[in-house]
């Protein structure tokens, strides 16, 4: 059973939807989308990945060397992977790399937006796979 079905009619779902919408408006949506797609790849979120072409999947899989991505995207993807694997171990260097491109305000907004997107993805996968 999916997230929407499980929480249908509750203010929890409404609030989650509102937070999800706000996340995309608070930071660079293209940057957030790339990081969402990478999280989907690592989490094997087929529904999200279905929207990507084979070329896009291949480029994203090898983002550290792909010419498709510049320094900002690489800093964000590096941060995102660490965030996903072990958020408490995000390093000073990873934050500094992101901060060099986004600034303090940009980092704060990006990380909060990433939190919401990751949280929703985790909930969707949980409801689909566990319940």
């Amino acid at each position, binding site marked *: 059973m999916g997230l929407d079905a499980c929480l249908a009619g509750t203010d929890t779902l409404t*609030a989650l939807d509102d937070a999800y919408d706000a996340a995309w408006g608070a930071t660079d949506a293209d940057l957030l989308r790339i990081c969402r797609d990478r999280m989907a790849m690592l989490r094997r979120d087929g529904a999200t990945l279905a929207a990507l072409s084979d070329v896009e999947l291949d480029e994203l899989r090898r983002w550290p060397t792909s010419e498709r991505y510049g320094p900002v995207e690489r800093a964000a993807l590096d941060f995102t992977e660490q965030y996903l694997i072990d*958020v408490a171990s995000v390093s000073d260097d990873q*934050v500094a790399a992101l901060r060099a491109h986004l600034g303090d305000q940009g980092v*704060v907004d990006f990380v*909060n937006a990433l939190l919401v997107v990751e949280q929703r993805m985790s909930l969707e996968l949980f409801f689909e796979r566990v319940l």
Partner: protein
Amino acid sequence: MAFERARVDPTVRVDRALGRALSDFAAAAVRNDAVDPVTTELVRLRCATHHDCHT
């Protein structure tokens, strides 16, 4: 892992609309009583540990 200094300016606040939406979601999640209190507290503590949160 404990950090002795902030890695971004601690006076910076998250985008207002996102911050408000996050607070509203947290409040709605707390009001949701579908899960029993003991399980809820166990999950909260586990998440706090994972996020190095000291609340």
